[in-house]
């Protein structure tokens, strides 16, 4: 017959003999396809959001923002734990020896001065919160907890100020 016996020739002929669609069908379908826009899938949108968040985190981290935020959180946690520790110690003290150790529950300023010599009040919440470099002074009838230098300046400037609670 007209077909060559070799495999490739016959296959080529099979492809050439492929039925062709009417031109108007092709143009009609193509027109319909081009008329409808491609929508972005929800997955793509989620991916886009995740990508942008990651990029922002990278930028934030590069300028030290992450470290700053972590440090702030750590400080807050420390302060809370100090405050909680102070409260529990106080309640422990009041529970164990409420009457016998009245000095511990409400020490006078003179006792404090005797105890630490510099007006440091170990039972003051400020002491636990701000550490040992804070000093309690009495300034015009108000008890202040100040950094050591500020307390010294106060005492030097105001002759009536005294170390310890008012």
């Amino acid at each position, binding site marked *: 017959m007209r077909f060559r016996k070799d495999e490739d020739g016959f296959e080529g002929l099979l492809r050439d003999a*492929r*039925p*062709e669609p009417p031109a108007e069908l092709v143009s009609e379908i193509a027109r319909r396809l081009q008329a409808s826009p491609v929508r972005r899938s929800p997955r793509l949108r989620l991916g886009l959001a995740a990508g942008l968040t990651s990029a922002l985190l990278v930028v934030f981290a590069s300028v030290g923002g992450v470290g700053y935020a972590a440090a702030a959180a750590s400080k807050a946690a420390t302060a809370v734990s100090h405050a909680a520790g102070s409260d529990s110690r106080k309640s422990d003290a009041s529970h164990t020896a409420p009457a016998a150790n009245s000095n511990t529950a409400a020490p006078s300023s003179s006792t404090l001065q005797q105890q630490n010599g510099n007006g440091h009040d170990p039972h003051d919440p400020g002491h636990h919160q701000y550490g040992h470099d804070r000093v309690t002074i009495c300034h015009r009838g108000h008890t202040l907890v100040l950094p050591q230098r500020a307390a010294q300046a106060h005492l030097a400037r105001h002759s009536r100020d005294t170390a310890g609670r008012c």
Partner: protein
Amino acid sequence: MGRRDPLAEPAPLIRRVYAYAAYRLGHGPDAEDVTSETFERALRYRDSYDPARGEPAAWLIGIARRVIDDPRRRRELPVDAPEGVAEGPEEGSADRLDLQAAVALLSTGDRELVALRYGADLSARQIARVLGMKTNAVEVALHRVRTRLREALDAPAAEPDDGKRARAV
């Protein structure tokens, strides 16, 4: 990052889908309907196309197969001999008409293979994936189909010629 649009270049895809449908159902309105419906569904499910699972042509052929096998549209669809066979070849396309008529005489399974390979122009590997077969098995089956087609084409014209060729089994 952007997902590839499977229908970005539609014209070649339309031709492949139509050729696939025409090899299965015969050249004409049924193949046109199937092509149209296939692209209608493709448009609806365009977002679900996953490039990792195959090329757009293979995805579309998967849709076309479902359209053809859809029980709602599956009336008794005879596989007609190509138009013009009964009246005689036109415009020197005798080879094409002979071949299409020979394809129409094949069994459903053989016709499916021819449609996928030479209509949709899928590779043996893609066909294997579509049909759930091994690539080797597809290649062997295609070889046998080609042999049968050659025999049908080489055979003397003793086919029933009452306007319709014998239906495929």
